[in-house]
């Protein structure tokens, strides 16, 4: 047992944050889970609105609407993550190659992130208007103006089952710059010596990237993947601003949660939905945290 003098001041220093996080994160998660298991009955007619226990979850997961929302979320996440990674990496490579006025380009790419999802969503609602032909506005009108009318689309309201991919457009536009900044920082962290050494050994420019630079960026790529991926799963504001409430085509678990809570007046179903969402995000984030913990320990020796 170490002396209290050694550990007590440090412990007292972190105690307030332990208490605050304990109450406002973990206690509320616990409350949310316990709410999600409630059995609820309407006051007047004694109808059972939530059967209680795990049945709340099977009922929600079994409903077509929820499965539709989960599928939308999958499409959105895949396209959004792939899009931001591709554009983020592309821009980072271009800037890293050395351009004039790099600061200006960096700001231009990062700027969309400074705009709130709601404000951007209002603009993108108009840009992604589904009207075609003589009703075209926004992107469809732009396509018509440059003679690409055949690429006009209903965007997220098109009949395709994968229409949610269009909802990733504004999200990619907003967050590619952020991924670019992450990668750019990664490139800057690699010393020039290594590239020179590779070039002296006769490596082509592609080989320098493929075998020297990219492998060293993989931790950053993983962080970017996790950050963007979990943002996508929680995304609500952008979708709400673009599609309004009760939109079936654009429904994801997060927008359904809003409907359950504020329109259907059913906090139990909303809590079950929230718990499922938390588990989904945890499946992605927890292995990442474990991995970084492990590598950090290894590097510390």
């Amino acid at each position, binding site marked *: 047992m170490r002396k209290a003098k050694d550990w007590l001041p440090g412990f007292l220093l972190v105690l307030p944050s332990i208490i605050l996080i304990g109450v406002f994160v973990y206690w509320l998660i616990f409350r949310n889970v316990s709410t999600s298991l409630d059995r609820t009955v*309407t*006051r*007047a*007619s004694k*109808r059972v609105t939530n059967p209680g226990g795990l049945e709340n979850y099977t009922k929600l997961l079994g409903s077509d*609407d929820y499965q539709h929302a989960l599928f939308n979320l999958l499409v959105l996440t895949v396209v959004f993550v792939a899009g931001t990674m591709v554009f983020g990496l592309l821009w980072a490579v271009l800037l890293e190659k050395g351009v004039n006025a790099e600061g200006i380009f960096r700001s231009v790419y990062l700027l969309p992130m400074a705009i709130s999802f709601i404000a951007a969503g209002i603009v993108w*609602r108009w840009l*992604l*208007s*589904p*009207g*075609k*032909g*003589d*009703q075209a506005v926004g992107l469809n009108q732009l396509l018509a103006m440059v003679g690409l009318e055949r690429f006009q689309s*209903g965007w997220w*309201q098109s*009949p395709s089952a994968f*229409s949610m991919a269009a909802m990733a457009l504004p999200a990619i536009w907003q967050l590619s710059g952020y991924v670019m900044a992450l990668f750019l920082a990664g490139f800057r962290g690699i010393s020039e010596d290594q590239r020179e050494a590779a070039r002296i050994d006769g490596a082509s420019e592609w080989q320098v990237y493929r075998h020297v630079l990219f492998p060293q960026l993989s931790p950053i790529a993983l962080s970017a993947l996790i950050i963007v991926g979990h943002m996508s799963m929680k995304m609500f504001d952008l979708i709400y*601003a*673009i*599609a*309004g*409430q*009760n*939109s*079936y*085509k*654009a*429904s994801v678990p997060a927008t359904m949660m*809003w*409907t359950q809570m*504020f*329109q*259907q*007046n*059913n906090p139990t179903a909303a809590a079950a939905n929230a718990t499922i969402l938390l588990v989904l995000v945890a499946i992605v984030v927890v292995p990442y945290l474990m991995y970084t913990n492990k590598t950090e320990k290894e590097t510390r020796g």
Partner: protein
Amino acid sequence: MRNRAVATLAMAGVVSVALAACGSTSDNTATGGSTPGGGASTSLQTKAGGAGGDVGVFTWWAAGSEKKGLDALEALFKEKYPNDKFVNLAVAGGAGSNAKAKLASDLQNNQPPDSFQGHAGAELADYIDASQIEPVNDVIQALGGESVFPKNLLDRLTVDGNIYSVPSNIHRANVVWANVAVLKKAGVNQPPKDIKSWIADMDKIKASGVSTPLSVSGTWTQVQLFENVLIADLGADKYNGLFKGDTKWDSPEVKAAAADYKKLLSYTNTASDGDDWPVATDMVIDGKAAYNVMGDWAVAEFADKGKKQDQDWTWFPTPGTDGVFDFLADSFTLPKGAKNPGGTKDWLMLIGSAEGQKAFNLAKGSIPARTDVPKTDFPPYQQAAMDAFKSNTIVSSIAHGAAVSLAWNADISSAISKFYSSKDDATLVSDLAAAAKKNLG
């Protein structure tokens, strides 16, 4: 400091009640009436010039004609109750959906506004059930009760003998707005009698070069269009039965209505789920569409764009719903735990007064809930609506919370939104039937 001032005023209020009870005269005007509907209430005590303090009024009237109406009320409130300070707590967003979410959390946190706007009818039932609003029988009686409000309206507001809100205005939801020039060009001179002849007219309009004869907008405007088709195809009685369980949502009539609705959508523009209503009404104003089914708040949009009735635009009840008044009403409440109930009652008295109703409804383009407001001051459309309100069969609107609770409305809305992309009317009917089962039991 302010708290002390409020407390002093509250004390003054208590004293004035005591004085009035003793029958002595005081500076305070006591407006009273008999106890209404068996509900426990005392006669209303108000103070000349208002009870004082802030009166926070929560609405979704943040833009357009609605804001003008609210501004007119605010000006009148300032004049009538100089002691009170009006605080505008409006939250923007079509049909009040954003506002209702904000309100729900405020009520949950016991931070109610001094008065909030609510659609009269089924939508208030949620608040009453949760004991979040208090009866205002005394205000209704002081205003004149059944002698000034239509009885069928008060019946709809009464729950277990108590009235929980003061109606400010009435709107009609089954109105088609039409562009005169577009109709003339297509050779359509008579308002159609039923949905079938309406569709025939739309074919003519399409042939004359207008590719989208009918305009729609975001999800709730689609719900409103569908509700119009339901009234047309079912008739008032069967339509009313939908909300009591007497008419089945998967009955042949509803199936026929869903098919008609599908047909109508084939004449419309491609709308985005998130659009608000003026997008669709503006299409009629600009001649890009001939018809738009919208509540009669659209009159203000026409006036705003400098368009004249009969010359530029015309209206008729949605084909098949002539003689029916699809109503929705806004009303104001006294939330439980309101910080300044005296101020709330001043506000409610103003809302319910003939003067307040006239000022507000003239600006908003709706009609007064009171029947003693002279018709002559209103523009021609409202005069016609006031006549219709008195003589027509009155039914409640789905899209605007008069017929169904918020939860049921949400279920119907998602079914309609789903239909908009799938155009599968069999699924629409089964979704609607499932929603009815869930919400009616």
